[in-house]
């Protein structure tokens, strides 16, 4: 499982993606992923908002995650 990181999320973690190995325990849902990265990188808790995309669609907290999903952390957007 890979988790893509953009904008300030990339700066907080210090790389553009997080890798979970075959043997790693993966987060089972969007809310678990959010908790996991906020526990590991507490700076995420200071952001205005934190969203997750699963297969390039916004996903609510209860959406389950699978190893072959494309997952992305979406910090507050600021286009335009």
């Amino acid at each position, binding site marked *: 499982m890979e988790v*893509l990181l*953009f*904008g*300030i999320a990339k*700066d907080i973690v210090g790389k553009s993606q997080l890798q979970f190995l075959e043997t790693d325990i993966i987060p089972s849902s969007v809310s678990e992923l959010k908790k996991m990265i906020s526990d590991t990188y507490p700076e995420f808790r*200071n*952001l*205005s908002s934190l969203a997750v*995309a699963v297969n*390039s*669609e*916004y996903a609510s907290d209860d959406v389950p995650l699978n190893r072959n999903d494309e997952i*992305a952390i*979406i*910090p*507050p*957007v*600021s*286009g*335009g």
Partner: protein
Amino acid sequence: MVDKKIIEIVDIIDTSQVFTELSDAQSGGICVFIGTVREFTQGEEVVSLEFETYKKMAVKEMDKIASDAMKKWSLNKVIIRHAVGLKEVEAPVVVVGASSAHRDACFEACRYLIDTLKETVPIWKKEMFENKTVWVSAHP
């Protein structure tokens, strides 16, 4: 059949294309909004802006916004084009617009296009000042 929606993420925006792209025999009006790089933000001088995107998702979200606008108003053509990369002061960074038979529809749609883009499309803007950089809207 000509494309009714133009959805793009590009490196450089050519603002002179948009009239031709939205022009349509059934339309009596075209409304366009162009977002550009402002020199000062809250009294501080911005050197440049850097835009980053999750392109696959951004294009999907932009397409949804264009389709929603076409459902809400009677529009003939819609464009949403956003630039990425490093942009200097005065550079165009986003173009949205619509053409319609009468002006009310394209005026209202144009505002909806840019307002919704700012809320949902995964694009991130970093302000580069003389001695610091700031991800816009990241913190409350």
